[in-house]
């Protein structure tokens, strides 16, 4: 057995750089380890390279230098289709197939993996329940759903083939605050039950601190630091402090408005 699979490392970036086709150095010298069963949050402003980092994991992009390892094996050497099918992927724009019903969207990966129809149907029902989708929505098309419902379908679809690894790119970014809060709460409950390895991208400090077991702060294509949420609030690092300050400023100014 490989060293990293014995010590519980699910994903490993070794000196990874990514240069875009236009020649821009998007990521440079990235080193990180994501542990099995944790929710690893990539936090950073937009353009800092979070999405690029995520796409390097399921090889939607390939590193220009360095190596990405999933379950101990360099992704460059494995069958890319099998790799992607073993990793759940949720994106901000959801990307549900507009011509598929909810049911078919959720059952997509099991179906292309050749599961029997009744097993797919069972799995779809199980997942709908898990993510809190009412059964009557099963035959609807994505455009007939609310943003929150669509995002639930997106999560169910990513979980369909029971991947150990889940990549989530600002999944709740476009939701209203109440729906977002609800989905964050359900995410935590779900994660208590499932213990997936999750890489979660967000630019929202509050979301990062609430959901992450560790938070990796990115800035301009580099990893600034990786901290547990409690450490994050106390950190002396100027970049982290800037984030914490901006976060607190929002809370404080809201609290002070009544007293001014």
């Amino acid at each position, binding site marked *: 057995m490989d060293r990293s699979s014995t010590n519980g490392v699910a994903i490993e970036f070794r000196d990874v750089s990514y240069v875009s086709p236009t020649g821009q150095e998007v990521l440079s010298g990235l080193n990180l380890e994501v542990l099995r069963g944790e929710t690893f949050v990539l936090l950073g402003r937009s353009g800092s390279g979070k999405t690029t980092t995520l796409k390097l994991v*399921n090889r939607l992009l390939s590193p220009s230098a360095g190596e990405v390892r999933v379950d101990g094996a360099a992704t460059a050497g494995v069958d890319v289709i099998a790799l992607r099918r073993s990793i759940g992927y949720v994106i901000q724009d959801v*990307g549900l197939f507009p011509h598929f019903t909810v049911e078919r969207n959720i059952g997509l990966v099991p179906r*292309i993996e050749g599961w029997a129809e009744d097993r797919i149907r069972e799995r779809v029902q199980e997942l709908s329940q898990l993510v809190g989708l009412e059964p009557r929505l099963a035959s609807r*098309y994505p455009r007939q759903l609310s943003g929150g419902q669509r995002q639930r379908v997106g999560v169910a679809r990513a979980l369909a083939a029971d991947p150990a690894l889940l990549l989530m790119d600002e999944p709740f970014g476009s939701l209203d605050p109440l729906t977002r809060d609800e989905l964050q709460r359900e995410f935590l409950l779900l994660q208590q039950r499932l213990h997936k390895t999750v890489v979660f991208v967000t630019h929202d400090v509050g979301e990062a601190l609430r959901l992450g077991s560790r938070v990796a702060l990115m800035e301009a294509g580099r990893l600034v630091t990786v901290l547990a949420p409690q450490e994050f609030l106390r950190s002396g690092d100027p970049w982290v402090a800037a984030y914490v300050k901006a976060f607190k400023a929002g809370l404080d100014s809201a609290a002070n408005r009544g007293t001014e």
Partner: protein
Amino acid sequence: MNIFQFMVQNHDQVLELTLEHLWLVGISTLLAVLIGIPLGVLIAHWPVLNKPVLASANIIQTIPSLALFGFLLPLPWLGERADRLAILALTLYALLPLIRNTYTGIRGVDPAVVEAGRGMGLTDRQLLFQVELPLAVSVILSGVRVAVVISVGLATIAAAIGAGGLGEFIFRGLAMVNNQLILAGAIPAAALALFADTSLGWLEKRLRPR
């Protein structure tokens, strides 16, 4: 004798020429679909080929139809029979709307949907047949519709090289300065075009992704 009496009296000839016309249009459209859709798919995924392919199809479109028939005449095997020649010419004309609409339709698919599909492990083939083509189908069909309507009109010219079809009436009518003969070709041709346009338009709406 008015035009309708004439058509009733010569109904077997009207029918025969209409069927010939349909044959020319049908076969050429089928060939254009078989060539044009794969070409459209190809250039949608391989942008380097986009300009040369679309430009070639565009140039063909600008050649006057009689001239095109003339150019193709010396070709071996094809030049031997007028209907082969006509079918080839009609196919070439029908290519542009098919290539262009397939290309446009596929490029118009929401990138987030394609990205999600690829990220979940769909192969290129699965992406094409389960995502891209189904989502582009109404745009592609509108290309088929344009191609058919153009072909129905152009196929009347095929009679000039002896390929038959409703153009027979028209050319005979022109030669004999007989308006009734011209109309006997033109009216069924117009009806065919209208029918194809309406029914394919209906199908296009039905298949538009929700």
